[in-house]
């Protein structure tokens, strides 16, 4: 109360009415303008700039080279003659599909498991969430250590079971599953965390009623829990799909896209055109195709989100 009194006293020293009128109308504008200005100049403007760039050819590595308008040439090249574009799309889609599916199933299982009462639940729930808070670079480093051929924990476990050592990240067939496992390790907790919160927020009454009616565990899960946590599940799927499709750092640290191009996702491929070959026009075209694909995926997921609810 004291603070309000002081405020009143201070305010009365100024021409009250005029100030308040001015503040009332200008406040939202004044508060919004700086943010909008920053976002327009450092986000909207650059994005339009690179859209324009995607119709041009520009080698940033060559100091004398200038822009050259080439129309749709970059896009045509990408779709027809680029030998690595479609493989990258395939790698990205496979990676996203597999990791998101596993993360959602595992995350759901973990959320159910950790929603029951047991001693030390709070602490364990926080502990299993830790992987998602650490930097993907560190996660990559952790898994490089785990997969290390000579010292890694994975090979040590195999050794205990009597198997030979495997160079997980260095072989065409094992690199992709290895990278996927690292991503699953880091992001399953994300799905689990969201679903644990959703399960915790469920009302008790329907479950009590179902119990009286003689429903078994599976029925309660299938007809009560699952429909009720569906919105949270869809949010988790949406966010994970978007993030998984644009993955860059984890793979950069683990394999750099190799061996060969077996783990080269679109983000990494775009990066190579932009910052290894310095073909800014071509890289912009690739990045816009990536955005386009993400928008398509997001719309598909949102479509399913809406449809089943009605």
């Amino acid at each position: 109360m004291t603070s309000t009194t002081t405020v009143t006293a201070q305010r009365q020293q100024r021409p009250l009415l005029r100030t308040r009128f001015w503040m009332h109308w200008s406040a939202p504008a004044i508060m919004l303008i700086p943010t909008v200005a920053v976002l327009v100049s450092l986000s909207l403007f650059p994005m339009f700039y690179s859209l324009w760039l995607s119709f041009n050819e520009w080698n940033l590595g060559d100091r004398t080279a200038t822009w050259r308008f080439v129309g749709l040439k970059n896009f045509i090249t990408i779709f027809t003659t680029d030998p690595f574009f479609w493989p990258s799309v395939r790698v990205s889609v496979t990676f996203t599909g597999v990791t998101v599916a596993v993360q959602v199933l595992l995350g759901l299982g973990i959320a159910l498991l950790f929603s029951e009462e047991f001693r030390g639940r709070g602490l364990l729930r926080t502990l299993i969430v830790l992987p998602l808070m650490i930097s993907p670079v560190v996660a990559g480093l952790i898994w490089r250590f785990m997969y290390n051929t000579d010292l890694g924990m994975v090979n040590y476990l195999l050794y205990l079971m009597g198997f030979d050592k495997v160079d997980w990240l260095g072989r065409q067939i094992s690199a992709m599953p290895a990278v996927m496992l690292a991503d699953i390790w880091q992001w399953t907790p994300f799905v689990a965390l969201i679903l644990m919160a959703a399960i915790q927020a469920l009302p008790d009454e329907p479950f009590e009623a179902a119990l009286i009616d003689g429903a078994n565990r599976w029925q309660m899960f299938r007809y009560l829990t699952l429909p009720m946590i569906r919105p949270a599940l869809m949010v988790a799927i949406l966010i994970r799909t978007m993030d998984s499709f644009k993955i860059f750092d984890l793979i950069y640290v683990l394999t750099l896209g190799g061996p060969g191009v077996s783990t080269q996702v679109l983000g990494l491929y775009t990066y190579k055109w932009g910052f290894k070959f310095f073909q800014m026009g071509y890289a912009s075209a690739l990045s816009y195709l990536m955005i386009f694909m993400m928008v398509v995926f997001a719309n598909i997921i949102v479509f399913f989100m809406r449809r089943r609810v009605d």
Partner: protein
Amino acid sequence: MGQRIAWLVFKRLLIAITTIFFVAPIILIFLTSIKSRVDALAFPPVWIFQPTFMNFEEIFGLYDFGHYFRNSLVAASTSTIFAMALGVPAAYSLARYKFRGHSNLAFWILSIRITPPIAAMIPVFILFRNLRLLDSIPGLVLIYCTFNLPFVVWMMRGFFEDLPIDLEESAMVDGCSRFGAFTRVALVLAAPGLASTAILTFLFTWNEFIFALVLTGTTARTMPVAVQLFMRETGILWGHMTAAAVIMMLPTVVLTFFIQRYLVRGLTFGAIK
């Protein structure tokens, strides 16, 4: 009865396995960081050893790791402060004033967050090159501030919308200005949200890799980039590598315990409260 106990034991076992799967790699990294070079390279791994902080001393002493640590700290904290200073009033404005195009603006702000960073990277790199902001801390702060703004706005808008407007109105009846109602009432009431938004922003920036990779050289290089380069250069020196990883993880682990309550909200962009 026996079946029920077996089921219970099975579930406990699953809980244990899950916890081990997610936590063991982190603990392993920590253990390796306090091993001596000989112990770190032993196979099969040694579990009982004389702990040493030699690795930590060496990465700061031999490789100037303190420089990157400082860069990360400065870039993350400064950009968090700027993003909060710009984004919080904007969020309040979006929460309290329903002007025309209000939801379009909100959606546009959100869409920036969805853009893959690599797509934003190309034009930002060219822009920074022309402005001579490459490899500078101010440049890094500027870009982190920009790309954290949508998060701050979106999160804080949710927190402000949760507050009953009556309190601000009564403060204004008592003679508070509109702006006063924001700073003296809304901000105070939203303090927990404010703190957790700031902490999450800090952590995102602390962990950020792509912008730092492309926009920095030796001067402004942050820890994630340094750690990653370090790994490629020294390869085998796992003691040093893991020590660096532990230093990077430490703030994240500690701060995660503080913001547990708002974690879901923060990570889903306020879609789930």
